C-alpha cells in the first residue's frame, strides 16, 4: 500500500469521494422520482373520476363505455388475500421464529434457516404457476367449487411467500433479547418455555410486530402469484372461496393493453400511487417498531 500522495492522486481522490457522496443520495433520489412520476402520470385520472368515486366506487369496468374506475373491489380483493395470508403466516411464522431462535439445536438451525431462505429464492411466477396447476385443483376439490382459483388459494401461497421476511426478522428480534433476561427467568426457576413465553416474547414484541408488518407489506405488493391464482374477477368478495382481483394484479394484467395518456392508463398509475402509499405506511410503521426495539436494548 502506498502511503504518500501525489497531486494526481489527490485529484483522483477528490472525484471519487464526490462520487461516493452523490451515490449516497441515490436511494432518496429514486424514492422521490418514483413518487413524482406516479403522481405525474396518475393524478390525471381525477379529470375523469372524482377521488371519492375512485376510492369508493364499486365497479371497475375500465373498457366499457363510459368506463368506470372504482377500485373498491380491488382494494377489498387485496384485503381479502392479505387477511387470509396473515391469518396463516403470523402464527406459523412466529412459531417457527421461536423454534429457530430458542429451541433448535445449532445444526438443525442452520438447515432450517437455509430452508426459509430458499422460499425467498423461488420466483413468484413459479409459485403462481404451481398454485394454478397443483394447488387450485385441490382447493376446488376439497371445497367442492367450480374453480380453485380463489382468494383462499392465493392466501395459502402468499402466506408461504411472507415467511422469509416474517421468520427472519422475528428471529432476529428474539435472538436480540439480552441474555440476562432469560438467565434471570431461569434462575428464578422458570422452565425454558416459561422464560420464552413470559419474558423473551414480551421483550421481543416490537420486533415481532415489525416482522409481521413487513410480511404483510410483502403480501400486499405481491403481483405475479396473485395474478395467476386469484382468478382475477373484479368483484367485491364475500368469502375467501371466491375469485378476487387485487390492486397489483390489475396493473400487471391491464397495463399492456392501454394507450399512453388514456383514462385507463392514468387510472392504473393512480392504483400505483395507492399501492405506494400503503406500502410506505406499512414499512414506515414497521421501522418505527424496529427502532423502538433497538432503543430498548
Amino acid at each position, binding site marked *: *500500500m502506498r502511503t*504518500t*500522495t501525489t497531486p494526481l492522486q489527490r485529484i483522483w481522490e477528490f472525484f471519487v*469521494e464526490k462520487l*461516493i*457522496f452523490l*451515490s*449516497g*443520495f*441515490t*436511494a*432518496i433520489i*429514486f424514492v422521490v*422520482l*418514483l413518487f413524482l*412520476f*406516479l403522481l405525474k402520470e396518475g393524478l390525471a385520472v381525477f379529470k375523469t373520476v372524482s377521488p371519492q368515486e375512485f376510492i369508493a366506487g364499486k365497479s371497475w369496468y375500465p373498457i366499457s363505455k363510459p368506463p368506470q374506475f372504482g377500485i373498491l373491489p380491488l382494494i377489498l380483493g387485496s384485503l381479502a388475500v392479505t387477511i387470509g395470508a396473515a391469518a396463516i403466516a403470523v402464527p*406459523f411464522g412466529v*412459531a*417457527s421464529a421461536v*423454534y*429457530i431462535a430458542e*429451541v*433448535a439445536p445449532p445444526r438443525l438451525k442452520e438447515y432450517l434457516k*437455509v430452508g*426459509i431462505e*430458499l*422460499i425467498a*429464492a*423461488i*420466483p*413468484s*411466477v*413459479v409459485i*403462481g*404457476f*404451481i398454485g*394454478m*396447476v*397443483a394447488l387450485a385443483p385441490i382447493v376446488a376439490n376439497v371445497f367442492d367449487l367450480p374453480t380453485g382459483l380463489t382468494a383462499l388459494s392465493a392466501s395459502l401461497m402468499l402466506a408461504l411467500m411472507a415467511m422469509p421476511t416474517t*421468520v427472519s426478522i422475528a428471529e432476529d428480534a428474539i435472538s436480540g433479547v439480552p441474555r440476562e433476561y432469560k438467565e434471570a427467568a431461569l434462575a428464578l426457576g422458570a*422452565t425454558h*418455555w416459561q422464560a420464552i413465553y413470559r419474558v423473551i416474547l414480551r421483550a421481543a414484541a416490537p420486533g415481532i410486530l415489525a416482522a409481521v408488518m413487513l410480511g404483510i407489506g410483502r403480501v*400486499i*405488493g405481491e*403481483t*405475479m402469484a396473485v395474478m*395467476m391464482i386469484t382468478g382475477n374477477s373484479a368483484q367485491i368478495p364475500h368469502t375467501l372461496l371466491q375469485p378476487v382481483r387485487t390492486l*397489483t394484479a390489475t396493473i*400487471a394484467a391491464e*397495463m399492456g393493453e392501454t394507450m*399512453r395518456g388514456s383514462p385507463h392508463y392514468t387510472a392504473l*398509475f393512480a392504483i*400505483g400511487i395507492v*399501492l*405506494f402509499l400503503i*406500502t*410506505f405506511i406499512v*414499512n414506515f410503521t414497521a*421501522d418505527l417498531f424496529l427502532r423502538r426495539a433497538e432503543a430498548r436494548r
Partner: protein
Amino acid sequence: MNAQRSEKLTFALLLAATIIVVLPVLVIIGIVIKNGVGAITWEFISTAPRDGMRAGGILPAIVGTFCLMIGAMLFAVPLGVFSAIYLNEYAGDNLLTRLIRLAIINLAGVPSVVYGLFGLGVFVMFFKFGTSILAGAMTLSIMNLPVIITASREALSNVPQSFREVSLSLGATRWQTIRHVVLPNALPGILTGIILEVGRAGGETAPILFTVAAFSLPFLPHSVFDQCMALPTHLYAISTQVPNIGLDVRYATAMVLLAVVLIVNFFSIMLRMRLRRRRQW
C-alpha cells in the same frame, strides 16, 4: 400437566409449525422437477420456440434472462456499493442519514409491479429507450438497489474499526484506507448480497412485463435496445395467455427458471458459509 411436560409438548408443536413452513418449498421444487424433467431435452434449451411457442425450445428466453441479470448488476452494483460506502464510512448520525435509511427501507417495500410502472414511465417513455433490455435492466437495478446497499453496508460495518485506525495511522488517506483495507475485507460479504440479487433479478416478472418483454421472439437480441424474451415472462405467457401448451413444457420452463435462480443462490449460500468459517476477528 406439569411444567416440564407442557414444555415438551409446546416445543414439539413449534417444531411441527416450522416443518409446515419449510416443507412446502421442498414440495414445490419436487413437483417442478418430477413433472418437468421429462420434457428437458437438448433441443428444448438450445433452440428458439416454433409454432406459436408450442414446439421448439426456450433458448431466447434463457439468453434474455442472463442479459437482464448482467445488465441490472452493471447499474446496481457500483451505485449500491458506493452508496453503502458513503453510509458506513462517511455519513454521520444525522437527519440526512436517517432520511436515506428511510428511503432505502421504503424502496425495498415498493411492490414490484410499481417498479414496472416506473420503468415504463421513465425508461421506456421519458428516456425513449423503448421496450428494451436496457429499460428492463435499469428497472431491475433500481429494484435491486436497496438490498445491495443494505448487504454491502453490513459487510463494511463488520470490518473492525482497528483495521481503519492502523491504516490511517500509517498515513493513508481516507479513500486509500477504504480502497486497500476496508473494501478487500468486506468483499466476500458484499458479493454475497450481490449474488443474492442476481438471482432475484433473474426471477422477477412484474418489473419487466411492460419494459422488456417480447411475448414471443424466435431470435436472440443483438443490442441493448432490442426487446427480448425472458424465462419468467415466458412462463407467465405460456401458463395464462397461450392455450393448449403441454403441461410438461410449462413445467420444464419452470424447472429451467428455478434451476437458474437456485444455482445462483447456492453460490451465495456457499460463499457466506466459507466466509463465516474463515473470519477470525
